[in-house]
């Protein structure tokens, strides 16, 4: 087992990794940049080291150097930043440091999305209709032709992308050029490449992820699926496991397909095989995420397995401690991705000082976060503030517990999407488990809350009181200018 792991990430996942290392009695090194000195992951780690490169957490070379300098024997990439960068995995391997994730050779198989889709299709699995070649924003004749072949609505994707970044849904041909330009710019910024391709959009789809784990000794298991259909900007806001809309037969087929894909690529370490399911129940393979995912705690709660721990163990060459039959999905788990943003103001990010941050508690409630009362949410990074995960014996229990936890969660100082989740959890379509990727757009703002008159009255009382407080908090002060000699002498009276 490793002695020391450098955590090449920040925020919530870095905190998560430090904790997993502690559980395994492994020494941790945290990275921080100038604006992150005060972050929780730095405080919790055993060692910390500043990353001075202007690229920050994206500087492959400096991070490898720091790993060597701090004598870390492994690097934990988390998600985002360098997690899916094959060159980073390769650089670590070259430097004799273990990259905690799939080997670079496996990652290379996913580096070109089109090739990957072709390979899976060749194995007999359904994939969305996609363009046969990639293109860059300057190659307009290529992409216009491809778009014509695929038809609208289509999705622009980055060949190197993930996390829904640099992805655009285009409904009309006249929006294509602008969409390509923007997606390419974003892809260049985030992934360092402007190679794009198209997929035909699957309408009324469900977004299903299957968690897989494979060790270096050829053992491969799945840990069930997650439904991440409630999305905004391709970010999964609410994720649950198991997926509510699947029959037992569908579920089995889905898991089987996931294992088939993983085997196809000789997958090692934790990964997610992602599928879309259309309204006819047909599955389409879309991609493999060769890293830990934001939503992994949902699976952890439903299976009672520590995925980050497994990642580390696998990377250290250990065997999986269990076989497929040992994996039992029990009850239901759900995760809300709490973002520092204002759903009622065009989802505008809301960085700033967290005046109050009180976590919900009680049985089967878990919050993964880097935030605490009195910390500042940086405007430089992703607005994800916390992940609220709960478990229940049944889906109903789970929903009720999530409602309660959301009520308990007290955040002041910045805007968050907490109230949005409260609406989602009260929506009858959600409660019945009938929702798809269009759910959020359709339901969010179309209706007023049904609130009883008594509460509204009490709120009116609170508002009036706050108004009074605001008026009275304006206390007189003496401005500096009025203390000057000139002014004092202007007040002197004749005689």
């Amino acid at each position, binding site marked *: 087992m490793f002695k020391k792991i450098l955590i090449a990430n920040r925020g919530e996942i870095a905190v998560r990794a430090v904790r997993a290392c502690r559980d395994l009695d492994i020494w941790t090194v945290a990275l921080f940049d100038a604006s992150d000195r005060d972050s929780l992951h730095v405080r919790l780690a055993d060692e910390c080291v500043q990353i001075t490169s202007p690229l920050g957490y994206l500087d492959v070379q400096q991070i490898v150097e720091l790993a060597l300098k701090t004598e870390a024997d492994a690097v934990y990439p988390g998600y985002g930043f360098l997690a899916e960068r094959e060159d980073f995995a390769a650089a670590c391997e070259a430097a004799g440091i273990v990259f905690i994730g799939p080997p670079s050779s496996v990652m290379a198989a996913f580096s070109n999305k089109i090739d990957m889709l072709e390979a899976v299709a060749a194995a007999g699995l359904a994939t969305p209709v996609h363009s046969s070649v990639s293109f860059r924003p300057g190659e307009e004749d290529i992409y216009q032709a491809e778009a014509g072949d695929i038809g609208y609505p289509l999705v622009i994707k980055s060949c190197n992308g993930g996390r829904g970044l640099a992805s655009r849904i285009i409904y009309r041909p006249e929006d294509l050029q602008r969409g390509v330009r923007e997606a390419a710019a974003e892809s260049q910024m985030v992934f360092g490449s402007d190679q794009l391709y198209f997929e035909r959009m699957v309408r009324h789809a469900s977004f299903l992820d299957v968690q897989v784990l494979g060790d270096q000794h050829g053992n491969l298991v799945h840990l069930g699926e997650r439904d991440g259909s409630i999305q905004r900007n391709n970010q999964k806001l609410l994720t649950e496991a198991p997926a509510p809309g699947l029959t037992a037969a569908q579920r089995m087929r889905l898991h089987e397909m996931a294992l088939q894909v993983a085997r196809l690529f000789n997958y090692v370490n934790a990964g997610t095989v992602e599928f879309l399911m259309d309204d006819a129940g047909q599955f389409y393979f879309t991609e493999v995420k060769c890293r830990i995912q934001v939503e992994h705690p949902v699976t952890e709660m439903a299976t009672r397995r520590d995925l980050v721990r497994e990642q580390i163990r696998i990377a250290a060459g250990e065997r999986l401690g269990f076989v497929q039959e040992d994996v039992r999905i029990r009850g239901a788990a759900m995760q809300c991705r709490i973002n520092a943003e204002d759903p009622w103001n065009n989802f505008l990010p809301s960085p700033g000082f967290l005046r109050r941050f009180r976590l919900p508690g009680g049985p089967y409630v878990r919050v993964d976060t880097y935030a605490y009362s009195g910390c500042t949410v940086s405007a430089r990074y992703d607005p994800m503030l916390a992940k609220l995960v709960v478990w229940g014996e049944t889906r109903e229990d789970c929903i009720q517990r999530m409602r309660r936890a959301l009520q308990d969660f007290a955040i002041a100082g910045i805007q968050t999407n907490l109230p949005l989740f409260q609406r989602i959890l009260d929506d009858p379509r959600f409660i019945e488990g009938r929702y798809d990727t269009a759910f959020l757009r359709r339901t969010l703002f179309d209706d007023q809350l049904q609130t009883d008159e008594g509460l509204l009255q009490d709120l009116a009382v609170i508002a009036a009181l706050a108004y009074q407080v605001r008026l009275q908090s304006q206390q007189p*002060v003496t401005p500096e200018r009025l203390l000057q000699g000139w002014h004092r002498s202007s007040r002197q009276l004749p005689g």
Partner: protein
Amino acid sequence: MAKSMDEYIQHLRSLRAEAYGSAKDVETQHRKGRLTARERVDMLFDANTFTEIDTLVLPRFETYMGGKSSRHGDGVITGFGLINGRHVFVAAQDATVMGGSLGEMHANKIVKAMKMALTYGCPFIAINDSGGARIQEGVDSLGGYARLFDANCEASGVIPQISVIMGPCAGGAVYSPALTDFVFMTENSYMFITGPDVVKAVMQEEVSQEQLGGGLVHSQESGVSHFLAKDDRECLALVRELLRYIPSNNQNDPPYVPPLDDPDRRCPELEQIVPTDPNKPYEVREVIASIFDDGRFFEVHQLWAENLVVGFARLNGWVVGIVANQPRVLAGTIDIKASIKAAHFIRMCDAFNIPIITLQDVPGFLPGTAQEYGGIIRNGARMIYAYSEATVPKLMLILRKSYGGAYCVMSSKGLRGDLLYAWPNAEIAVMGAAGAVNILFRREVTSAPDPEARRLELVDDYEQKFNNPYVAASRGLIDDVIEPRDSRRVLIAALEVTLLKRERHVAKKHGLSPA
């Protein structure tokens, strides 16, 4: 054997208890819809800050009447406390003790509190609820009134003096409020020199107390009262609010509060509020709400002389006094009442270091025999005197019309206005176009082949040549022409540079303000 300390204390407590009205007296007062003096004082001051003085004063009349004094305090509560955190002295007449009648010691207590307020530079508030002079004390009582008036005059212009009428205030008693800076009345109070009985006897005129001198009458008709309140509670809240705008004395500045409103805020709505047609009325309070902090305006004399609006507001946190013509009433002309209203307000602002901002849209003085007989000349002059005399910053914004004598008297450059602005639609001239053409070109118009066409042509010509802000701007008589939306920004800039103004009068004993 010596008494124990406890016994001494018990004795003191029993004496103090006498200063409080009995439960029955309190109930009588409540039945009239009024609070007792103690309740009023408690309500007026910040919680638990009132300190009473002269609780143990005894009335003089026992010496005359041979009777034993039953009540300590002599029917008035005096003392000091905090209002919005600032020290204020008060004298509250207590109708539950001898009807609140004013005897010699009662007057002495009030005068003593006033002298203290004057010495320590604190505002003074008198709460009036009194049956009048205490007849048993005869001339001693009258002498008390005279000393009270004298103290009022002495303190005038040094500390703010506020009178709050919350019950009867009749006869000579009315002159103390009349000498103070602000008079508040409740609807349930009245003031008159002579009551309905005397009016009936002398003039054979049937009139009720309310009709003769109720709060509404004095707020609407006579202008004696500056503020009218529904009841005691609302009235005292108004007093507290007023004190947020005025300083404790004439050496201090009015309370500045850090503003919530944005100093750079544009006011595009002004373009809709003020019609360019000079004959269309509008509500000038909307203009005030648009320009000043948070739209807040604390109006003085709201119901009297409504053709001119005066009151307090804040501009980027600084207190200012606003004088504004009201085109909605009498087309915004200036009449006798409006002149008096403006003059008093301006002098008060000047005394207490409050900058004056004039919002002008005035067609001129109100014509007619009633005005001339009433002395509009003399009364209009009071306004000139007040503007000229004021050494506080004087800013002006011409919203539309500024004609003739009215131009001169309202904060013009000639009266040492500091920074004066006009909107581009302003009409600054001796008179409106139609009138001017009638005088200047009467013969030319009548002799023209088409008199009406010629007249319109001349009117047009006049408007282009004279009836705009640019003539005044070219002479430097206004300092700039600004877009309406920039009014707030510009006035804040102007106010902040003039705040430290230093100006002195020629030494004199005192001026002779007309009227």
